[in-house]
């Protein structure tokens, strides 16, 4: 009977029910996306930070190039100098990066090479550069009057994808420059001591982690913004639910009075209204979860360039919050329902 009472009562007020479900859905969607972004992207960002081989970038102190990068500090476990320059390929300006690519790959373990690392007269374009130039492994590429074979395609998920990688010797030959634009340095131990050491040697030093940390700061800000939006959307959903419930109680005061006259206790009456609110909470929560996942995916891709994964705990939390919002919103209407005097029924008011 309880189920019949609740479902039939909701069915006769289905338009209003739908509006409330949509309101809860919007709130739940914000909560889902907030939780997914918070848990998933933070976790992935942490993993990415840990996977960074290099944690310092060394730049020339004076002049444009580091002629001979020479650093022998106990905490430095590896270094790779890079020579960056631009050259025209098929009438398009492309950035080249020359380096010891075996060493560079070790230092950047997330590099994914489809094919082989280049040797001698070979090049390794990043995936974006390859797409731009219509290149695939095995193709030939002309730079100036020289031809190079594409040994493979590099996918890093970073701005390196826009570059063409070549050996340091080839880079020096093509650019006519000698030395390195920068050096990536991998430090294990006291990073500040290494920075001091390198600065004393006349280099400029930047922490790579600062870049990642600025992304973390962006994540923190995005989270704060989403938390605020979630709060306001949930408040609005709660208000909408409150309006639906209070209108329902006012419209049904005769019905409530009758139920009380027939012996319905306050607990049972509260349970009926809580169940009605619960249906709105659960339905809105489930729908909101799926909408929220889409939103999280969009935010993940657009802002952090990362795909988010589905987390079951987010579903449970979203559902719990939606039900909680529904329960809180129905407290006053339930109090009002309980206060209805069954005498009104006999008075015919």
């Amino acid at each position, binding site marked *: *009977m309880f189920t019949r009472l609740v479902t039939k009562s909701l069915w*006769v007020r289905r338009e209003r029910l739908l509006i409330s479900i949509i309101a809860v859905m919007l709130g739940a969607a914000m909560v889902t996306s907030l939780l997914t972004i918070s848990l998933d992207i933070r976790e992935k960002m942490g993993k990415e930070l840990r996977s960074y081989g290099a944690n310092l970038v060394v730049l020339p102190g004076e002049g444009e190039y580091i002629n001979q990068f020479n650093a022998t500090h106990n905490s430095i476990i590896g270094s790779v100098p890079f020579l960056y320059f631009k050259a025209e390929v098929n009438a398009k300006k492309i950035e080249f990066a020359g380096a010891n690519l075996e060493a560079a790959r070790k230092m950047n373990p997330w590099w994914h090479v489809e094919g082989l690392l280049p040797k001698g007269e070979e090049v390794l374009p990043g995936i974006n550069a390859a797409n731009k130039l219509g290149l695939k492994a095995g193709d030939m590429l002309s730079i100036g009057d020289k031809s190079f074979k594409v040994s493979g395609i590099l996918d890093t998920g970073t701005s390196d994808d826009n570059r063409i990688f070549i050996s340091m010797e080839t880079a020096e030959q093509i650019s006519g420059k000698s030395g390195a634009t920068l050096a990536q340095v991998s430090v294990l131990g006291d990073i500040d001591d290494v920075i001091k050491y390198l600065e004393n040697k006349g280099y400029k030093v930047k922490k790579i982690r600062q870049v990642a940390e600025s992304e973390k700061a962006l994540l923190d800000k995005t989270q704060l913004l989403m938390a605020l939006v979630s709060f306001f959307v949930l408040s609005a959903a709660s208000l909408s639910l409150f309006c639906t419930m209070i209108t329902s109680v006012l419209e049904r005061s005769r*019905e409530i009075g009758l139920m009380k006259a*027939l*012996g319905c206790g*306050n607990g049972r009456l509260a349970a009926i209204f809580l169940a009605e609110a619960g249906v709105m909470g659960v339905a809105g929560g489930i729908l909101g979860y799926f909408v929220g996942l889409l939103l999280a995916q969009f935010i993940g891709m657009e802002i952090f360039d990362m795909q988010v994964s589905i987390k079951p705990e987010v579903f449970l939390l979203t559902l719990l919050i939606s039900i909680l919002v529904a329960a809180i919103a129905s407290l006053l209407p339930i109090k009002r329902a309980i206060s209805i005097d*069954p005498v009104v029924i*006999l*008075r*015919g008011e």
Partner: protein
Amino acid sequence: MIIAKNLVKKYDTTCALKDASFTIEKGEWANIMGPSGSGKTTLLNLIGCLDSPTSGSLLVNGIETTKLGQKERTRFRRENIGLVFQQFHMIPHLTALENVMIAQYFHSIEDEKEAKEALVHVGMGHRLHHMPSQLSGGEQQRVCIARALINQPQIILADEPTGNLDKKNEEAVLDIFRELHSEGRTIVIVTHNPEIGEIGDKIIQISHGEVKY
């Protein structure tokens, strides 16, 4: 058995019931009669534990109901009293059968078979799954009587039960009350109708809140 002693009910400064004292024996049919605004419904509300008096004593089935709190009054009502209203009062989105079963649900557990039998008993076996809006006034009142009887209450309280019915339906409803009376139930009816007054065992006449009995 219902024993009222010096019952007073005041609403702010208005005294709806003044020192009402009367006795209704078990199995008796008592009609509460009097002009509009005389306090008939107030008295019925007090007997039905829908309201509590300002002062006085009211023993219903041996229980001093004036001492009961709101929760106890609700429990007492669902276990001892069957209510029939002038305006029928059915839950509009429930069928006739469900409107009867709801009283079972509030009392203990619902029993569809028993609810159907109760409706058949009042001549509504062919309208079990009709919504209130699909029933005539007489049919709705018969559903309400079935609902009032479903938990086997000792006392049936009815407020103008035939007030909104035509002659034919009035007779049908009164027949049901006669049958209940013959089964030994205590019946208290608030009515303007002198014909009903003649049927009962006792008339409690009320005027300006004063019982003349």
